[in-house]
C-alpha cells in the first residue's frame, strides 16, 4: 500500500519540508541556550572588528566614515555562514546517530530532505542577523532603509542556504562531526576573502585578486549598499546572481553526496 499515491507529489513534498523545518526548530526551543553560540560568534566579530579596525575609514576610498555601517553586513553574513555550517554539523550528528537512515528509507525524494535542512538554516540565520543589526544600530550604524534592510536580510538567508549546502555536503562525505572545523573554516574563508574589511581598492596583494573573483564579494556589496548609500538594482543583481550560482553549485554537490550515500 503506497500512501503517497493519495496526495499530489508537490503537496507531500511541501509537507515533508515543513515537517523537517519544524523538527529543526526544536534545538532552538528545547535546548536551553542553543541559540547563543550562533549569535555570540558574529556579534563578537562585529564588535571586535569595529573596535580594532574602525580607524580604517580615515583612509581615502571608504564610502562611509562609520566602520560599523561598513562591517555590519559582513558580520550578518558571517552569522549566516556559522548557522549554515551548524546545520551541517547537525546533519553529521544525525548520520552518526542513525537518524538520517530513517529519512533515507522513506519515499521522500533526496532533494526534499536536503531542502528541509537548507531552508531551516535560512530561517534560523535571521536570528543572529537581527541581533547583530540591532547592536550595530545602537552603536551608530546608519539606517539602511526598508529596501536596504530587505536586500540585506535576503542575502543573509540565501547565504545561510549556501552554507547549509556546503555543511551538508561535508557531513554526507565524511559522516562525522569531526568535519565541523572544515565546515566553519570554509565559510569563514569564503566570506572574509572579499571586500569584508575594506573596499577593493584598499585591499592588499593576494586578497585583492581573490576578492575580485570571489562571487561572495558581490553578495557583500549588495548586502552593504543600504548601509553606505542607496539601494539600486545595478548593485543588487550581481549579488543575486552570485548567490544563485553558489546555491546551484553547492546544492548540486550536496545532493550528489546524498544520492551517493550507500554507494
Amino acid at each position: 500500500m503506497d500512501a503517497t499515491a493519495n496526495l499530489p507529489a508537490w503537496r507531500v513534498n511541501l509537507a515533508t519540508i515543513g515537517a523537517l523545518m519544524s523538527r529543526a526548530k526544536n534545538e532552538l526551543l528545547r535546548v536551553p541556550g542553543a541559540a547563543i553560540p550562533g549569535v555570540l560568534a558574529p556579534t563578537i566579530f562585529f564588535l571586535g572588528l569595529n573596535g580594532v579596525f574602525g580607524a580604517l575609514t580615515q583612509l581615502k576610498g571608504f564610502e562611509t566614515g562609520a566602520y560599523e555601517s561598513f562591517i555590519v553586513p559582513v558580520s550578518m553574513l558571517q552569522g549566516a555562514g556559522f548557522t549554515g555550517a551548524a546545520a551541517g554539523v547537525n546533519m553529521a550528528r544525525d548520520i552518526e546517530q542513525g537518524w538520517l537512515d530513517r529519512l533515507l528509507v522513506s519515499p521522500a525524494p533526496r532533494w526534499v530532505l536536503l531542502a528541509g535542512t537548507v531552508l531551516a538554516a535560512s530561517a534560523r540565520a535571521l536570528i543572529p542577523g537581527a541581533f547583530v543589526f540591532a547592536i550595530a544600530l545602537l552603536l551608530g550604524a546608519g539606517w539602511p532603509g526598508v529596501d536596504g534592510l530587505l536586500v540585506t536580510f535576503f542575502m543573509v538567508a540565501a547565504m545561510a542556504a549556501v552554507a547549509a549546502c556546503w555543511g551538508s555536503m561535508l557531513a554526507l562525505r565524511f559522516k562525522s562531526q569531526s568535519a565541523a572545523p572544515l565546515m566553519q573554516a570554509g565559510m569563514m574563508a569564503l566570506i572574509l576573502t572579499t571586500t569584508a574589511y575594506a573596499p577593493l581598492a584598499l585591499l592588499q596583494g593576494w586578497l585583492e585578486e581573490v576578492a575580485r573573483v570571489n562571487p561572495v564579494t558581490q553578495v557583500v556589496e549588495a548586502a552593504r549598499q543600504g548601509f553606505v548609500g542607496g539601494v539600486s538594482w545595478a548593485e543588487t543583481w550581481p549579488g543575486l546572481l552570485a548567490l544563485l550560482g553558489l546555491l546551484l553549485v553547492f546544492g548540486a554537490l550536496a545532493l550528489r553526496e546524498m544520492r551517493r550515500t550507500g554507494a
Partner: protein
Amino acid sequence: MASATAISVQGLERAFAEVLAVRGVEIEVGEGEIYGFLGPNGAGKTTTVRMLTTLLLPTGGRATVAGHDVVAEARQVRASIGVALQEAALDPLMTGRELIRLQATLHGLPGAEGRRRADDLLERVDLADAADRRVGTYSGGMQRRLDLAAALVHEPRVLFLDEPTTGLDPVSRKTIWEEVRALNDDGTTVFLTTQYLEEADQLADNVGIIDSGRIVAEGTPASLKAEVGAPHIRLQLEEGSIAEAEEICRRIGPLLPPVDAKTVLVEVEQGAADIPRVVRALDEADIEVGSLELVHPSLDDVFVAKTGYHIKVPTTSSAPANA
C-alpha cells in the same frame, strides 16, 4: 500462507574495499511469512538488510522487495516497506507523538490521517501515556516500541526488523515478540534479523542462517533441527577433569565443540536413556559432575554443525536508555 514472493534475493553481494561482507546470498520470502535471519556479530545480517532497504547499494546480484528492484525502483521499495534498524534512530528532542507524525508526513499521509494513525499506534505499542514526553526520557524498551510504531505508520507490506530486541530485558523482548506475531497475523511480511536463537525459533516460519556473508542453512526451525539429529548431554565439570571426561564420553557418543573450558557436550542417540550410562562411567572414574542437562537440538546446534562453532549470544541489559 500466500504463495506470492515478498522478498527475492539472488546472488546478492556487497564488498567494502577488499572485504566481501555479503557473498552471494539467495533468499525467497513468501508474502505473509516471518523470515528469521540468524547469525553472529559480523556475519553480514545488517549489511544484507541495508541493501534490501535501499540504504546500501549491492556490488553484485539483485534483489526485489514487494515486487520492486532495490536499485532500479528504490523509491517504490521505500514506499512499501517499514524499517526498524539496529540502532533505534530516534530524535531525543522530539516527543513520541511528533516522531510518529513526522513519519506519517514522510510517507505522504494527510495531516488528519497521520494524527489518527499516530494515536492508534501509540495506543497499540502501549506508549499513549508517554506520547507527549520527549523521546530522550524513554527507556530502551520504550524507544524500541516507538521505533516499531514509526515503522508501521504507513501500513507497510514488508517490515524489516534489524535485531529488534538486542539489549532489551526479557519482559520488553516478549512484548516485541507479541507485537510481531500480531502484525504477521494481519498479513505483514516480516524480515527479522537476530542473534538470539530463541527468537528465531519462536517467531520465524523460515530461518536463514548466515555466517561470514554466506547462507549456511535455510529451512523451517523444525526441519533444520531435525537435520542435526540427536540430542546431547551438557556436563559441567572441574577444569582438571575435562580431558579424562572427554575420553570417557567419546566411548558413549560423538563429542560436540565445547562452549567453555568446564563443559563437555556429548551426543546421545537414545536421549534420556543414555544419561545413566554417562553418569555411571564418570562415577567409576571418580569424576565429579557439577551439573548435567539433556539438551535437545537447537538452532545453535544447527549453526555448530554448519560452521564448527557456537553463536555467542550477547548479554541483555535492563537499564533504561537514559539512566
